Structure formats: C-alpha cells, structure tokens
C-alpha cells in the first residue's frame, strides 16, 4: 500500500494545498490591490510549476529540451497576449 503513495507526489499535493491557503489570504486579510496581485501571481505560477515537474513528469526523458522549449514558448506567447492587452485596453498606455 505504501509504495502506491510516493513521498514526492504526496509532498507536491500538500504543497499545492498550502499555496491555495496562502492565496486565500488576499480576501481574508486587509491588504492593498498590488500586494494581493503579487501574492496571487507568486502562488499561481509556483503551483503551476509544481504540477508541471512533480505530476506531469516534464523533465524525465530525452525529450526534455523539446518539451520545455514548447512550454516556455506557450507561456511567453500567453504573457505577451495578456500583458499587451492590459497595456492597450486596461491601463490606457
């Protein structure tokens, strides 16, 4: 039974729960919008990283460079899309 619950994945799950609880602080504690967004950005991206490395086995085989290049590419396009939209449509720059 024990071999079915590898420590790495159990810890990854516990860490994800912890990050979710930390993220909840932004609505239960009194803080500025900037501070709240900073906390959310950190907890969300760290948690995505945990999923990618612990659960999705992203770096396990010889395809590792191709997989990471592709993920970085997707993430960069995503960030450019979101930040570019915020710049022109929300922050009015």
């Amino acid at each position, binding site marked *: 039974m024990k071999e079915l619950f590898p420590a790495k994945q159990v810890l990854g799950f516990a860490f994800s729960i912890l990050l979710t609880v930390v993220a909840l602080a932004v609505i239960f504690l009194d803080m500025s919008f900037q501070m709240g967004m900073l906390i959310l950005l950190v907890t969300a991206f760290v948690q995505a990283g945990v999923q990618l490395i612990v659960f999705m086995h992203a770096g396990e085989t010889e395809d590792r460079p191709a997989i990471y290049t592709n993920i970085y590419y*997707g993430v960069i396009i995503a960030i450019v899309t979101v930040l570019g939209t915020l710049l022109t449509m929300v922050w009015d720059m």
Partner: protein
Amino acid sequence: MKMDHSLPLEYSTDQNKLNILGFWIFLGAEIMLFATLFASYFTLANRTGNGPTGAEIFEITPVLIETFLLLTSSFTIGLGIHAMRLGKQKAMLTFFSVTLLLGLAFLGVEIYEFVHYVHVGAGLQTSAFTSILLTTLGTHGAHVTLGLFWGLFIILQIKKRGLTPQTANKSFIFSLYWHFLDVVWIFIFSFIYLKGMM
C-alpha cells in the same frame, strides 16, 4: 516494433515518445487559447453595464470546494500513473476512477454555480462581464466534460486489453491533459475569483 525496456511502458516505443511530445505541443496551444480568454476577461471585467459585478455574485464556498476537488483529482491521477509504472493495473484503475468521480463532482458544483448565476441575473447576455466570465469558465468546464468521457473510455480499454505500450501511452497522455486542466483552474481561481473578491 522496437521496445526500450529501460523506460516506462508509456515511453517504450518511438511512436509513444512522439505521441507524448505531440501532446505537449497541443498543451502549448491550449495555454495560448486560455491566455486569449484571460486577456478578454481582464479587458471586460469592469464592463458590467446594468448587471452585477464579480464581487456581488462570487461566493467563496463553492469555489473552494471546486478547487479542492480538482486539486485532489490531479493528485489521484498522478498516483494512478505511478501505480501504472509499478504494473499494478487494479490500483491504477481505482485511482483513475476516483479521479473521474472527483471530476464529476467538480462539474456538478460548477453547474450548480452556473444555475445560481443565472438566477441572480448574471446570464450569458447580461453584460460584457458576465458574458466573458461564463465563456471562460465554460471553456474550462467543457474541457473537464470531455476529459470525463475520455478517461472513462481509457478505463474501459485497459479493462479489455490490459496494460500494453499503447494503453499505457494513452493513459499517460490523458493524465497530462487532466493535470493541465488543474493548472488552468489555479489561474481561474486566482485571477477571476480571488481577484474579483479582493
């Protein structure tokens, strides 16, 4: 067929390796799809017209339940893949079934949430905000729904054919998809719900 026995079953043939790499490329495209939805959401989040704002309609309890259901399901499918690598088919199928049940529960809560939104006057056509909110949540929910059927068919196929390089490969790829849905949910949870309630 050339088999490499030093690698887990799901990577054991060249075709399998390519399938997994191909699916990662698909997930790269999915990241961009959700990025466009988030970009639209941030643009329209304050255009509430005569409809309610996010702070008025979001409730933390169902959102937290959804978050923990999906987070746990992502954990159990990870355990399922671990059991698959140990060759324990029965344990693997149990973990996969638990995953799908958690996914089904998630979907149930999300449907309840949608019905609730419509009841409080936040339908798809109420305002730019409600329209992009329901589109973004709905796109994620549609992915989960598809995943439920996909996972069910994989369980049936493994029951019929056992663990082969092909079925192991399909199961692994399905697990990637399911983890990805959890990653998208983390961003929805953080930047739609928590930001909206801040």
